[in-house]
């Protein structure tokens, strides 16, 4: 059984149409094991959770808890040993066209301009270039990169590069956005700006997002729900509904409600020996 922490923030929950939401991701009894028998390493054990359509879920845990492995399975980059992950009702058995991934580093191609980098999925998946060009320009504007379309990655700051990779993850209008510690390499101030921007983009586009991080504050700030992962074997130790009203401003971190969530997550991590 997973210990579920009941959490109540001070602010009333934002009225969200939960009833009409459908299950977008379903992860069932998912396990990943390296090796066999006594030497087997259990990277993930009996992972079970669901993500509603349009929901923002953070998975927080210390390094080595298997959270990145879980994301790779959701992205179809590796198969689980047991159980399955479903996206919109169909099992994820390999890379899919309806998933967008943002990695820890921007992973841009230095020989492509900002616009051409954003359009990589268009070229890979043979989408309508004309329609996608308009969409690319639109998204670049959304992340504040208007006027930088013709620049090359090396002319951009780290934060700007990560914005390009966000546009690239959104361009083919995926049903699911997977983010693997996307702001981990950015400085603290740029990171805060990116939190605000990601929240704004998410509220505008209402994508289903699974966001992996090792920062408790980042997880709480961004998510509707936080899954706490504990290591060896990697499993979900606690689930918290974050009922802070949106849009959340940066100073929400100073509120009592925010602090309660952070303490609860830390307690959940400590309880299972996964102290951060």
């Amino acid at each position, binding site marked *: 059984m997973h210990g579920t922490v009941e959490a109540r923030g001070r602010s009333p929950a934002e009225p969200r149409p939960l009833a009409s939401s459908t299950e977008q991701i379903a992860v069932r009894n998912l396990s990943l094991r390296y090796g066999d028998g006594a030497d087997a390493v259990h990277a993930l054990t009996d992972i079970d959770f669901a993500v509603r359509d349009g929901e923002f879920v953070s998975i927080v845990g210390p390094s080595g808890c298997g959270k990145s492995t879980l994301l790779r399975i959701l992205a179809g*980059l590796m198969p689980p040993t047991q159980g399955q992950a479903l996206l919109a009702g169909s099992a994820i058995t390999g890379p899919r066209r309806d998933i967008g991934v943002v*990695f820890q580093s921007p992973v841009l*191609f230095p*020989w492509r301009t900002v616009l051409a980098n954003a359009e990589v*999925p268009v070229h890979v998946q043979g989408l309508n270039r004309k329609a996608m060009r308009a969409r690319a320009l639109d998204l670049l504007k959304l992340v504040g990169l208007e006027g930088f379309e013709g620049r090359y990655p*090396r002319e951009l700051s780290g934060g700007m590069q990560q914005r390009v990779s966000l546009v690239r993850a959104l361009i*083919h209008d995926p049903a699911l956005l997977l983010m693997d510690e996307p702001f981990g390499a950015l400085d603290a101030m740029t990171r805060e700006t990116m939190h605000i921007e990601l929240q704004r983009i998410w509220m505008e586009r209402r994508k289903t997002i699974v966001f992996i991080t090792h920062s408790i504050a980042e997880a709480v700030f961004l998510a509707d729900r936080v899954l706490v992962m504990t290591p060896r074997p990697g499993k979900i130790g606690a689930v918290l509904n974050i009922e802070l009203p949106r849009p959340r401003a940066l100073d929400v971190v100073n509120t009592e409600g925010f602090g309660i969530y952070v303490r609860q997550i830390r307690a959940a991590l400590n309880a299972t020996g996964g102290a951060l």
Partner: protein
Amino acid sequence: MSHAITRGTTGLTLRLVLVAVVLGAWEAGVRHFEIAPYILPPPSSIFAGLWRGLQSGIYIKHAGVTLAETFMGFTLGTMLAFILGTAVALSRRVEYFLYPFIVMFQAMPKVALAPLIVVWFGLGLTSKVINAALVAFFPLMVNTIVGLRSADEDRVNLLRSLAASRWQIFWMLQLPNAMPYIFAGLEIAMIFALIGAIVAEFVGAEQGLGVLIQSMNFNLDVAGQFGVLLILSVIGLILNGLITRLRRRVLFWDAPRATNTSLRKEPGT
């Protein structure tokens, strides 16, 4: 300030003055110590010989032959190297079966094959082209393999996560990613092709700058040989310049980590 010297017209003037001083000392030394012209000719007779050779058209004719051999050998060798290098980089099976041959040939000094090549393919153009191709082949093949394999794993995963095919990963990532390596290989291959052509001409040929050097050597025309060497280094510079220019065009995005193998560095870049 050392920087101020290497920049601008003052620097250029100083360089020319230095060259003039060295040539002057050479001339004076040869005259003063009365060194025999078949050991070390003075610069004045080298330039006179060069001028005569250029006027008579004999240099141009032989240089044209050597250049043709070099270009054909370079094209043949680098094309095969690129195809084979790509096959090795993309297929473990191809690598497995070709590996013994690659290791054996790589350790061997390719110019040592020149006598055999001339026996097999005769005194004409073919043997020179093949020898040039053989010498030019390896630097590019090795660099092609390394370049194609050096694709960043995150970038591969990104394309895979978009459900890209193996060929899309090759065209969109591996090939452009390998271009800096390939150009470094091409720069070496170009000069190697010239070496291959000259060596094969030494072994046995009817025309070419290598033949000219040997016949001048036979006639104790040392000044003439220096003339040919000058022409060869000019040819080498031009060939290298061609690749460098092409490289700058193709690799505009790779400016910061330029792996320029040419000796001449642009001041202020």
